[in-house]
């Protein structure tokens, strides 16, 4: 697992207080530090959520600009990454709805060519990883997102529920469904080889 992907140990109260104070003061240097620290995880989250990588940089930039604008809304009793991911999620959802409206507004009903380069396949090294990446690309975005937040970001079910705006029971069922589908695709792939 890339080092940049490791979630930090639970931030001490001192650290979250420092972040909260800096955000309230719109401290650009602090935000710059956070940009570097969370770069990989934010990119990965947005790819898992959207299934594409071509617009990730725009979403990353918009996310941090919103962090700068709304820093006084961060509550230091929660983990910073949970707040960061919820901001990124809202922006990604808004972007998806806007693109859908634009497609519907096409006068001749043309739809733009889909992004055929799977970012999951691009991220895979090795045969097993390629098989898993193909399975991951086929999952519903909500299941993919839930798996990432639980098993790779190590967030609690309650934290995930807060990010995605769904009950804990819904989050749980997405995780179980995602695990079952990944196992099924994984086994199906190995049987095919």
């Amino acid at each position, binding site marked *: 697992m890339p080092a940049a992907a490791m979630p930090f140990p639970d931030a001490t109260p001192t650290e979250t207080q420092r972040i909260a104070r800096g955000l309230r003061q719109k401290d650009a240097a602090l935000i710059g530090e956070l940009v570097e620290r969370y770069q990989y995880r934010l990119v990965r989250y947005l790819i898992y959520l959207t299934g594409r990588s071509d617009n990730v940089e725009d979403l990353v930039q918009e996310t941090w600009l919103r962090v700068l604008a709304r820093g006084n809304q961060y509550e230091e009793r929660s983990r910073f990454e949970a707040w960061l991911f919820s901001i990124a999620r809202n922006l990604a959802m808004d972007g998806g709805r806007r693109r859908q409206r634009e497609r519907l507004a096409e006068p001749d009903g043309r739809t733009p060519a889909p992004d055929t380069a799977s970012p999951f396949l691009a991220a895979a090294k090795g045969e*097993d990883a390629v098989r*898993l990446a193909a399975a991951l690309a086929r999952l519903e975005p909500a299941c993919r997102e839930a798996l990432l937040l639980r098993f790779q970001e190590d967030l609690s*079910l309650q934290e995930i529920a807060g990010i995605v705006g769904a009950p804990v029971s819904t989050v749980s069922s997405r995780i179980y469904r995602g695990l079952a589908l990944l*196992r099924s695709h994984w086994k199906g792939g190995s049987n095919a080889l």
Partner: protein
Amino acid sequence: MHCDDHERARLLMDAARVAGLRPEEQSWLDRHLAGCMECEEFGQETARVLAGLNALSFEPDPAMSGRVRRAVALRARRNPWRRVAWAAAAAVILAAAPVYRNVTERQQARQDELLMERVGARIAQAVPEALAPLIGPGGVSQ
């Protein structure tokens, strides 16, 4: 073992990863796995799948963070007080517009009243003067 035991074991193995198990559930699962290779293999398969997820690497463009930091720094340098001052000025103008209009209308109405009074006074003076030749000095129309 019953088929249901295997299904229960698999559910518990997933539940252990998702939310954790109660001690009695963990004990039951440990006993089951000690004697069931099939379910043990199921657990190992899940572990491989999750390990595979962690092996995926989504390295972004190394220059991306620099571009993002510059965009944030640029936005942060905008003087927030200038925006506040513009917003305050706009609010004052918007709030003052109806007041100004009301004052102007009232002033105009008052001027109209004064004009009508003057006109009325002039008429009251002019009519008797115009009729005076017709009435004559005795006050009776000839």
